[in-house]
């Protein structure tokens, strides 16, 4: 029987196991939305397409299931560009379907036309323009396959109106996919694995530096086994948080620009860096010419382009992190070594750094609420619920990474590579849609939240009970911190003193709003928020000019890290004077 492209589209989604999609309808995709009514797809109507894409990212990161978004042509499609770029940077498996004007008028500046495959060429892992209705099943199958396999990433499918309205024979959803130019390596090269094991067995000051690849590969059990087997101290990137339980005795804390002093010092003084699924981002390496000068590097990554992109690698291993770690652990089990004894001196050094440079802040009982204190309280109250935590971008994000000490993978969702403000709340919304009964928290900044807060109403409409905690300093805090430290405290366009009353805003949307202004209010209000059904916004009115430390200034070497209460060297001034 010949059916329309929209019906094929819906049948394929069903066959793919997609039961939730986020999106926004419009002219070119109308036919798809019409047919959707006859299918059991649960569609969450976001009020802005950017929110839909971040929600899909949150859905993917929390559940490991490829996320799906559907939007219309032109502005609908261009509004997805930020989310697509974010997903590309952070390796999020998502598939975005965009409406397109009919093929006959493409290129003629039709109403709501944009060159979407052209625009998204460099911000997707792959994109498709469907030009024949009968090709839809193959394209959709390939889209999902490409999105989730290898290094995950965003895939876009552009659907011209005449293609989804046209008819074709539906011969079923393809079972197999075969793309001759795409066969990601999965197993690590055995010779390389042996070589890595030999280096590990000989190292005296090794450190494991894990990244987001561990989360995407669902390899945290294998990582934990590696850590237990070798007793090597371990640090994780922002994207890797959750891959190792923070209560593990060998946990060093996050590394990088706002990572712990100890984790960063380990990166400076190590003789062997065991990099598992990270990509040597500049927020981790600092000044490249000073990075890893006296150590060897093992780098495991599924994406060959990540290897030797920024730094020299001694033992590259291309493969799926889970498989490679399984291979590596098997190899290491053959080695007879008293790991703890051999690393004793290294442990001593690390304990010394931890003793002299712990993460710290000073909360005065009657003073303003310290953001770190607020986040630590959120952690203490909610830890037992094993919640999913999303964040926006800025100071609050770094404090959340430092003080929300998670225990499980896929529980910390944040925008790492692109640093997309406004990411946190939509991502929490998406995670909540994936896990309706789980506690989902958005730790957000007042600046970040204002970028996407219109979708509070979406949470109310679909009963997505996200708890939003605003670390509210009435500033674009991270920008202000840089202006204070590197531009002589000349504050330019960072003051958010004039802002909505977030309690009333929540109430206007039919959600619950709460406010804490004194340290003593923080804990009871968090408890109240967690026990209140439905979405809640908690406005935590914090100290305005608290700075986030430790900090490695951009472009500096890791060893130039500035810890709490340490002076800022004059040479870091970047202003015009």
């Amino acid at each position: 029987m010949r059916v329309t492209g929209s019906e094929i589209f819906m049948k394929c989604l069903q066959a793919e196991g997609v039961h939730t999609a986020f999106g926004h309808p419009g002219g070119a995709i109308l036919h798809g939305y019409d047919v959707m009514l006859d299918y059991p797809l649960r569609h969450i109507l976001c009020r802005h397409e950017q929110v839909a894409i971040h929600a899909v990212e949150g859905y993917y990161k929390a559940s490991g299931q490829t996320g799906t978004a559907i939007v219309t042509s032109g502005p609908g499609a261009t509004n997805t560009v930020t989310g697509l770029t974010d997903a590309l940077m952070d390796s999020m498996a998502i598939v975005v379907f965009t409406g397109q004007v009919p093929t006959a008028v493409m290129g003629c500046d039709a109403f709501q036309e944009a060159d979407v495959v052209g625009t998204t060429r460099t911000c997707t892992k792959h994109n498709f323009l469907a030009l024949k209705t009968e090709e839809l099943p193959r394209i959709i199958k390939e889209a999902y396959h490409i999105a989730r396999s290898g290094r995950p990433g965003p895939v876009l499918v552009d659907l011209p109106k005449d293609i989804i309205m046209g008819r074709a024979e539906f011969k079923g959803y393809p079972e197999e996919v075969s793309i001759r130019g795409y066969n990601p390596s999965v197993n690590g090269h055995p010779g390389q694995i042996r070589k890595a094991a030999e280096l590990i067995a000989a190292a005296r000051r090794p450190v494991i530096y894990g990244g987001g690849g561990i989360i995407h590969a669902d390899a945290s059990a294998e990582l934990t086994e590696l850590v237990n087997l070798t007793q090597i101290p371990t640090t994780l990137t922002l994207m890797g948080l959750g891959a190792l339980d923070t209560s593990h005795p060998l946990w060093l804390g996050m590394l990088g620009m706002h990572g712990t002093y100890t984790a960063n010092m380990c990166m400076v003084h190590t003789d062997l860096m065991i990099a598992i699924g990270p990509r040597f981002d500049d927020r981790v390496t600092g000044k490249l010419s000073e990075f890893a000068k006296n150590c060897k590097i093992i780098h495991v990554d599924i994406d060959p382009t990540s290897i030797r992109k920024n730094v020299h690698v001694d033992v590259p291993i291309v493969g799926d992190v889970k498989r490679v770690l399984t291979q590596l652990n098997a190899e290491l089990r053959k080695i007879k070594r008293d790991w703890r004894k051999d690393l004793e001196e290294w442990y001593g050094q690390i304990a010394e750094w931890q003793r002299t440079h712990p993460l710290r802040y000073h909360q005065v009982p009657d003073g303003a609420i310290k953001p770190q204190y607020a986040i630590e309280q959120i952690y203490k109250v909610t830890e037992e619920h094993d919640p999913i935590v999303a964040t926006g971008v800025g100071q609050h994000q770094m404090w959340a990474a430092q003080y929300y000490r998670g225990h499980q993978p896929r529980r910390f969702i944040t925008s790492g590579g692109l640093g997309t403000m406004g990411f946190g709340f939509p991502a929490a919304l998406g995670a909540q849609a994936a896990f309706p009964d789980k506690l989902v928290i958005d730790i957000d900044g007042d600046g970040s939240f204002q970028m996407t807060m219109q979708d509070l109403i979406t949470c109310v409409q679909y009963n997505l009970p996200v708890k939003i905690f605003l670390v509210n300093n009435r500033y674009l805090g991270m920008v202000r911190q840089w202006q204070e430290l590197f531009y002589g405290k000349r504050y330019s366009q960072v003051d958010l003193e004039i802002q909505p009353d977030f309690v009333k805003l929540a109430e206007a949307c039919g959600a619950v709003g709460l406010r804490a202004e004194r340290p003593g209010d923080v804990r009871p209000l968090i408890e109240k928020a967690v026990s209140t059904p439905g979405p809640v916004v908690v406005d935590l009115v914090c100290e305005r000019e608290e700075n986030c430390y430790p900090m490695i200034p951009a472009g500096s070497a890791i060893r130039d890290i500035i810890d709490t209460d340490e002076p800022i060297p004059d040479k870091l001034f970047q202003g015009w004077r």
Partner: protein
Amino acid sequence: MTDPKHYRKHTLSILVENHQGVLAKIASLIAAKGYNIDSLSVAETLDPTVSRMTLSVHGDEWVMEQVVKQLHRIIDVIKVVDLTDESHVGREMIFVRVNAEPVNRAEILRIAEIFRGRVVDVTPTTYTLEITGEAGKIEAVLELLQPFGVQEVVRSGILAIARGSKTITKREEGRLRLAGRKQAVAE
């Protein structure tokens, strides 16, 4: 990591899916990464679903490793082979329209003959020549024709093929092997 002092010219043969948008994908990758491309030529192969590109690019070992990896990352790229360090034949073709006053006509024809060129069009005042050869030969003939007044040149970019009996499709079984080989080299 990279050092322009060690840059040299590399010739890559690339097999890609022959459908719309693929050339744009490769061009925008190259533009986004800032690689120095000297020339690019592309046309269908014996298999009409596959196109073959010859890409000429400047870089050192590190740049080339990145270029090859990044090209492989494009889903529509089936195979990439760097011909630079193996025996291969590379040719370019030009059409050149040169002023041909009566006194110079014989000399221009002689130059064309020496370089095994052909006259493809004649007017009372110009010749249009077709010349094929390696980059050095093309440069030489252009230099010799310059004094007569070159009006227009169109140049094809390099076409390259490896010497020997193996075809590009038989050289490597897809990218999986290539990744293995790269690791083996690293060892």
